[in-house]
């Protein structure tokens, strides 16, 4: 390129440079656009997205009962809370590791929906089945490192840093929800 500068006058040079820059820019744009399909191909595909939301019929879950449903490959705990569970969740003490009111964690007080994965190191806490250890606060107990969750899924004791995650969900009818 430098050789050309020497044997041509400046005016000609400008026009030529413009052409080369325009061509290069155009080629670079097309090249960049061609990369997009390859990036996009790594995003969740349509069949994966189709499984991304799960509808659950709550009608069969009696008061005091819990069920586990699978959502995006993770367990989700749905508990039909009793009156005492609701009232005990409603009055948390001060100084929780991750303070949150029960009202912020449920859409309807009777129904608690949380992702059943301990926020410490990813174990699945106990407490879903009758007779399982529910920990000191009547919620869930993680056997891996001894984290205790209350009836709102909040961490009360043990090494876990945060409350059990509440997934995005909505009530479709009074007795059915869609998670995700």
């Amino acid at each position, binding site marked *: 390129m430098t050789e*050309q500068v020497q*044997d*041509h006058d400046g005016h000609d040079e400008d026009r*030529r440079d413009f*052409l*080369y820059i*325009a*061509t290069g820019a*155009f*080629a670079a*744009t*097309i090249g960049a*656009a061609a990369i997009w399909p390859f990036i996009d191909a790594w995003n969740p595909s*349509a*069949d994966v997205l*189709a*499984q991304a939301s799960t*509808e659950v019929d709550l009608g069969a879950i009696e008061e005091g009962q819990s069920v586990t449903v699978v959502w995006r490959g993770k367990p989700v705990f749905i508990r039909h809370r009793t009156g005492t569970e609701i009232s005990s969740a409603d009055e948390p003490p001060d100084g929780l590791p991750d303070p949150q009111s029960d009202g912020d964690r449920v859409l309807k007080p009777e129904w608690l929906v949380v992702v059943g994965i301990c926020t410490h190191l990813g174990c699945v806490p106990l407490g879903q089945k009758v007779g399982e250890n529910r920990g000191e606060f009547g919620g869930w107990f993680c056997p891996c490192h001894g984290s205790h969750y209350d009836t709102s899924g909040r961490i009360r004791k043990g090494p876990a840093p945060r409350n059990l995650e509440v997934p995005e969900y909505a009530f479709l009818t009074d007795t059915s929800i869609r998670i995700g």
Partner: protein
Amino acid sequence: MLGRLQIAFVGLAAMVASPMVGAMAAEAGKAREPTELEWSFDGIFGQFDRAELQRGFHVFNQVCANCHSLEHIAYRHLSGIGLSEDEIKAIAAEVEVTDGPDEFGDNFQRPGRPSDPYRHPFDNEQQARAANGGALPPDLTLITKARPAGPDYVHAVLTGYGEAPPSEFEVTEGKDYNPYFKTWTIAMAEPLFEDAVEYADGTEASVDQMSRDVSAFLAWAAEPELERRKQTGFVVVAFLIILAGLLYASKRQMWAKLH
């Protein structure tokens, strides 16, 4: 690279070769050539006609699906023919799907969901054959791609019943004569008759109309990416033509001082 004489030679070779192609057309198989129809999705601008696809799906769902599967289609894919989420849910919920195992290890029945695959009429190949006199109704997802004439072929077979076979041709007992089918003898009984389905949009359900609609629907089922493919193609080709033009100008500029 080549002189005039040589080009003439190639031309001569092409002329010699052309009757060979003609000879082949008459010879290839004995099934009758399907009539060429016009489809909305023909050509480089062609797109699907949503109303036609929905009518076609209606025919498929009511008639064809009793024997034929649509393996690569899930209910959720039907958004591609313009159905709304609620319509798809309702259609999916019409079928009972076996799911499981539940907590007791048993399989159970539940209404279908949009993410379920389109229903299979039979549990397995043996059951399908047993129900159809030994013949296996083929999967139809890719039928329009698997036949050279595409949707024309599907339409031709569906409307090709009722002719009297040639006098020397014997149709096997229990099967039908259909000159568009490769052996002329088809195990599928004539599937469509006047008003076999009732169209929601009030279109008259003639055999020809239903055949066209379901053929268009199967063309969509084989190639749901067709519209996006063509739309993307226009942009891509346009940009590439401009790029080629710019590169040509650059090349001319660059080489100008050498000449």
